[in-house]
């Protein structure tokens, strides 16, 4: 056997090994996806999407409370986290090395590693206890705390990528510093910042633990952010630990919805990412 063919065989063996390993590691994901779609899609219908849950024993009923709740929780969390996150991220990129930046960066990185249930406990002590009751607002606050470090990080990275000479060009035209940031730096990094935000939103849309002692859940139609509110992950949690088969089916249906939502966010992210 000559050297070239030996090398070819070696190459092919490695390649085959890699392909096999890739398949093996993807199989569990594909299986999960398969079961979610198979069990979930059967449950989805108009009533499921548009009506309130029915008491156990009655057939039908839906999850509109969870849909609305998750929508409200995510929107408010995003409204809280995006401006603060962008401002902080821009600050970190503009003043990378002072004491404040270094401290904020460390705190933000630590926060990214804190288990989400701990974030829920923090929100509980800061908002739920002082207010005296569970609320959508406290749930959004907990989700915002999870989202915030992700937005800070992606903003910092994206702003750092904006070439310095673009900022200089703006300043040299007599544009004040703050306007240069607002009108030049942020727009130039916006698609990157939004990509980070969408990734973060996808992450919080499935969070359950931080909502257990904040948003708490509710089986009625509620849009008051000072009252407890339902959410899709909370419904999955409640339905799947129940002893009723009909409720398990509902949990599958909700899982399917969340997976679809995250899929859409991912596609949007990819479209935005191409524009960076």
């Amino acid at each position, binding site marked *: 056997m000559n050297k070239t063919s030996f090398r070819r065989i070696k190459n092919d063996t490695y390649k085959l090994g890699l392909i096999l390993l890739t398949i093996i590691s993807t199989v569990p994901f594909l299986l999960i996806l398969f079961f979610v779609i198979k069990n979930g899609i059967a449950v989805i219908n108009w009533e499921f999407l548009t009506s309130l849950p029915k008491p156990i024993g009655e057939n039908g009923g839906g999850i509109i409370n969870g849909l609305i709740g998750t929508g409200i929780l995510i929107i408010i969390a995003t409204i809280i986290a995006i401006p603060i996150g962008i401002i902080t991220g821009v600050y970190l990129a503009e003043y990378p090395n002072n004491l404040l930046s270094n401290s904020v960066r460390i705190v933000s990185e630590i926060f990214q590693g804190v288990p989400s249930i701990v974030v829920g406990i923090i929100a509980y002590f800061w908002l739920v206890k002082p207010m005296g009751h569970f609320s959508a607002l406290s749930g959004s606050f907990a989700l915002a705390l999870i989202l915030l470090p992700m937005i800070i990080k992606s903003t910092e990275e994206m702003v750092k990528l904006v070439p310095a000479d*673009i900022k200089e060009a703006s*300043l040299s*035209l007599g544009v004040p510093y703050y306007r240069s940031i607002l009108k030049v730096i942020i727009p*130039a990094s916006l698609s990157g910042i939004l990509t980070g935000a969408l990734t973060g939103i996808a992450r919080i849309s499935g969070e359950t633990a931080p909502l257990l002692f904040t948003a708490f859940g509710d089986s009625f139609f509620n849009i008051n952010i000072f009252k407890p509110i339902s959410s899709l992950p909370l419904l999955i949690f409640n339905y799947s630990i129940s002893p009723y088969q009909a409720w398990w089916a509902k949990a599958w249906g909700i899982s399917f919805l969340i997976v679809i939502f995250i899929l859409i966010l991912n596609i949007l992210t990819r479209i935005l990412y191409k524009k960076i």
Partner: protein
Amino acid sequence: MINSILKIENLSASYDDKVIIQNINLEFQKNKITAIMGPSGCGKTTLLRCLNRMHELTPNAKVSGKILLESTNLNDNFMELNSTDPILVRRRIGMVFQRPNPFPNLTIYQNVLAGYLLNGIKLKKQEADEIVEKHLNLVALWDEVKDNLKKHGTFLSGGQQQRLCIARALAMEPDVLLLDEPTSALDPISTQRIEDLIVELQKTVTIIIVTHNVGQAGRVSDFVAFLYLGDLIEYGLTDTIFTNPKNLQTEKFLTGKIS
């Protein structure tokens, strides 16, 4: 007759306490082209950036001395730039950088108007159109881009981008235009076009151009200032200095013995 528009008195500048230029005294003549030349690292960019108060934006950068700009107010002849709002200074003294830097998220049209748009200065559509056409014509770019004004400036060639940046600076109608080695990133043909353009522009604006290219200084400038290791070694009419340099360092630089 000598007609100065910008004067520097005892100007020194430093980064982190490292002195870069020291005790520079210079007067720039109105509607003339002054070239600042000298080997790399001698402080040409630093000097230029002091003139529109961009130097002070670098952390730990210091400036001392006076910079005086001919005043628009008839009562004073000159205003001191250190005590003038840097925003106003930069609107009267425009700048073009070494590397073309059009705004990537703005169109060609918006790039020309950037000074207005970014400052929130409102223009009527017709006014805006006029400013764009006039200044793109000034930099001889109008015919090349008039059908693509809505495209982004980054699609242009390097030379076109640099001319767009010159148009952007000129659109603010500055009195002085600072050019920091504007052709060092360009090919010979684009360089030639920009040099022709610079000579043409002196009718409308006073030009100070940094270059470490002796040939370029000779081709475009009326006056030259030769900087070496942060000192102003020699200043005068380009013709005089090129044919008869007084200082040995200047002569060495002109003949390519130091670079």
